[in-house]
């Protein structure tokens, strides 16, 4: 596959992600922040997002399993997650986070656990998609091309 095809596929895939609602304009913001002086910016930010989210989900799982659920703690974690996800444009994750926070406010354990599952699900989806996107990025770079910036 030549560079042009890869680049096209990259753009198409990104567009699909936005169309399908996995990502929103914020992701575009990230991509625009990437330049010569900061060539891996998106990857780095998203990597941190993955790390951070893994940790938060792990914490959330643990916190919700306790006898007396500390909803303040849960809410703080969800808040973090919501902030992170909205910063990278992981729209679906962010939306579930909003519902999750409502559950926390109601101190609804069942709802919280359900939301946690949803968040995990959405997160794993978006993670897979982003990883695929990055692998495309790698292929483009390996083929000597540059990563196209995404402009509507």
């Amino acid at each position, binding site marked *: 596959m030549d560079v042009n095809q890869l680049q096209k596929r990259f753009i198409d895939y990104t567009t699909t992600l936005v169309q399908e609602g996995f990502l929103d304009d914020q992701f575009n913001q990230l991509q625009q922040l990437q330049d010569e002086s900061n060539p891996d910016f998106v990857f780095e930010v998203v990597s*941190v997002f993955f790390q*951070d989210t893994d940790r938060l989900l792990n914490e959330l799982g643990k916190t919700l399993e306790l006898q007396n659920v500390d909803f303040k703690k849960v809410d703080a974690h969800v808040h973090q997650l919501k902030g992170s996800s909205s*910063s990278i444009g992981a729209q679906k994750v962010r939306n579930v986070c909003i519902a999750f926070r409502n559950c926390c406010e109601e101190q609804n354990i069942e709802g919280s656990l359900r939301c946690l599952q949803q968040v995990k699900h959405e997160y794993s989806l978006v993670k897979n998609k982003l*990883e695929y996107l990055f692998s495309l990025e790698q292929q483009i770079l390996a083929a000597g091309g540059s990563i196209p910036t995404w402009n509507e």
Partner: protein
Amino acid sequence: MVCEMGDDYDEDMDIEGVSSMWPEDVGSESGKRFTMEKPGLDKDMLEEVTITEDISQVDFKRLLELTNYSEKGSSQLVNLVKNWEYKQSNAVRLLNEELDILSRQRQEVELKKLEILEDHQFEGDSGDKRPISILDDVYDIWEAAPRRKSNVVVQNKRIEIDAEYDTITYWKQRAMELEKLLEASVQREQTLMEKLQENIKTLERQSSPVEEFSQILKRADNFLHFVLQNAPVVIGHQDKDLRYRFIYNHFPSLQDEDIIGKTDVEIFTGAGVKESQDFKREVMQRGQPGKREITFDTGLFGSKTFLIYVEPVFSKAGDTIGVNYMGMEISDQVLKRERMATLREEIAVQKAKETELNKTIHITEETMRAKQMLATMSHEIRSPLTGVVSMAEILSNSKLDREQRQLLDVMISSGDLVLQLINDILDLSKVESGVMRLEATKFRPREVVKHVLQTAAASLQKELTLEGHVAEGVPVEVIGDVLRIRQILTNLISNAIKFTHEGRVGINLYVVPDPEDPGKSEEFHQNHISNQSVVSENHQKEKNCSEASHDQTCNGCLEQNGSPDEGPSTPVKHLTPADESQASGTAVWIRCDVYDTGIGIPEKAIPTLFKKYMQVSADHARKYGGTGLGLAICKQLVELMGGSLTVTTKEHCGSTFTFLLPYKISLKREPQDGTDELYDMEEHEIVSDANNDDTVACYFNFRPRTLGSLFSSAESMGTHKPPLKSFGYDPLNKLKIQSEKPYSFLSSNCISRESDLDACSVTAAVDSFSDIESSLKELEPSESYALCGGKTCLSNSSILKNPKMDSHDYGETCMGVDNKDKPRESHVVCQGQEQETRSSQIRSCSSTESPKSDSKPRILLVEDNKINVMVAKSMIKQFGHDIDVVNDGVEAVRAVQTHNYDLVLMDVCMPVMDGLQATRLIRSFEETGSWDAAVEAGIDQLEPSPQLQPNCIHAVPSRKRVPIIAMTANSLAESADECLANGMDSFISKPVTSQKLKECLQQYIPC
């Protein structure tokens, strides 16, 4: 009791000769006490019996006394008397009857005589007054006379007279006739009288009652003797002093005079004698008959058991005057009974055993069947499942869209899980049924450890450090069942990871002396101990979770890591056991510790830990999943291989599973081939070192692959930045090398060969803030590098500061752990951390180093979410502004205390102190010129340190109002109105975009 022949023995006693004096009709009554047949009937029987001896001894005086005074004796006597009296009265009655008849006949005769006289008188007076015919009818005296006695001859026919009536001849004839009659009557009377006399004489001749009694008694006695002659019975009578007065014993062994008049105790000695005497006495006292079984053991007749019956004898006044006693020897019966009892007991035991056995057999059969069933089912399930999974895998290689691939992945992983479970079950039943075969193949322990860790790291979902340490001395190649060993290791590692949430999981491999051969242990000991001390030190730290252990850990790791570096150059101190073993060609025992810093195992769960289907608790099962088969399989496999699996654990601190296995050492060492997969691995630095000396210590370290997994090959990323080797400072060179491959520290263990010197000094410096001056000296080059090296380094450090960010959230206790997680990185990490945490100070310094910085607007970003920080920072950088970042309200206040900022971007919702409060405190200072409000809120004012800010122009913050822009998440708690009310100037809704940021910033600072 005993005697030969009594004096009273009747030599002439002859049963036949004794005629029965028993009255015929008395039998039934007297039979109540003596039932005796008529002598006639039993005559024959008795004829054949010879009673040889009379063995009873009697004190006759006493017998007399007894018959006179005792109730029983007298009643018997009365009975005899009664019988006799009855017989006598019967005889008297018969005689009386006879007498009656006789007297009546006499009366009759007299009456007749009278009549005749009258007749004559009347005849003499008036001879014919009345016709005789009438008189005849009336006075027929013969009619009234008794006729039954046939022997009494009465002439009742009329006297026949030939002569003419009323003539002289007639009367003469008549008178003569009557004379004859009278004569006959008198004669009869005389005969009767004679008879009577005779009868009376007979009566007088009859025997006296005493004689008769003795006859009866004798007869009864004979019967008794007959009955008792062979019975093992002793019968006796004892008076109230328990002196024998009578004894009957069939088997006498003592003379009469030895017994009569003596007590039991006087006669015998030995066991049981006293008891029997006491029992007799007791019966006498109570007045109630009783039976008892007594075992005697006397010199006279040895050990015998008697059943004795004792009854009291009362006088007529009701006093006890002695006892009747009867004993029967029942030794045989007792013996039999005891044997029977034992037998019955044995039978019962036997039966119980049998039942138990049957039950066991049943259970075993059931279990076997169940196991067989399970194995069969597992096998049956596995085959089609394998089909499903492999088809799914083929499918996954075809062209699919993301969604389909996602579904397929879930499918495959679920399938794999079920397969794993079934394989576990099959393994277990294989081991249990002894079908499991072990294979002996050559393998390299180091590789196994590395592969297991690699595999685990590949699927690691947590922030855990995986490490492996193979001690020097472990042979490079050994022989064993590598598949099973790998299975055990994988099982233990995945268990460890499953139950560990933070900290690390690792494997330690080292040689130990043969546990069954203590002789060889001496030389190993040193080595073993030194290895263990490192291990235990590490464990100690992990368990304590001690913050202070930061640099210690570093040292501990250096100790471990030092070996590969030193390996080639410094000679190995110990004679390595591997060498020795290789020389002798024997087996080597390798101990493997799999340790973690996880939740540990409660003590009560340890006994069942290695049991099948057992998990620590139902709660754990729910929380962590799993089948509970893993450890059972591990243990069985280890034991199958001749080793042992043990665990040491402490709840909440971690567990260490240890297995000890013997391996054969491959004697022929193959030449190192270039295709060895070790060379392909990323950590070839280590490996190449290790290959110089095969038995040298080896250290592996794996970080979670969350990010690294994105990239398949090392080269793909490594190229897009030219190497910057010109930097002189060594640690930074390392840093720079890393920056060439920014993925590497995330994916693997590139850090393992960092310069020890720097790592130590820097981390040590980092540990104490009091040494901040010296640490700055160290940090300065890195800072300058950061500036010169451009964004790569910055972004690196920003990634690296993660652990620190975590520790902010979760308190200081985590800090030590987090830092320990990656001891080799720590100097890099810590630089980043320090820069961030002390960012206000340090960053200002670094920025002031640049002369242009005055003209640039200075912006403070207060934000706790690191992703938001990254994004916002990147945006502001694009605008060309400098930015300091702090993570919460308190830090923001401190930053404002020490520096002048042209703008503050303030997140609203933050831990420790939120943006609203921080804004209020800053505004309060600006209005009052004092930080009292901040001090009240718990923020100590930091004196601006001249060292920290050598070139700072705005050393003293001005009271100029700084624009504070809120960054809100548009939630209710972060409403714009509230922001403004708390002294903020404006707000940007999240997520922040370049456009929004730019528009906002433009209002306050020149862009």
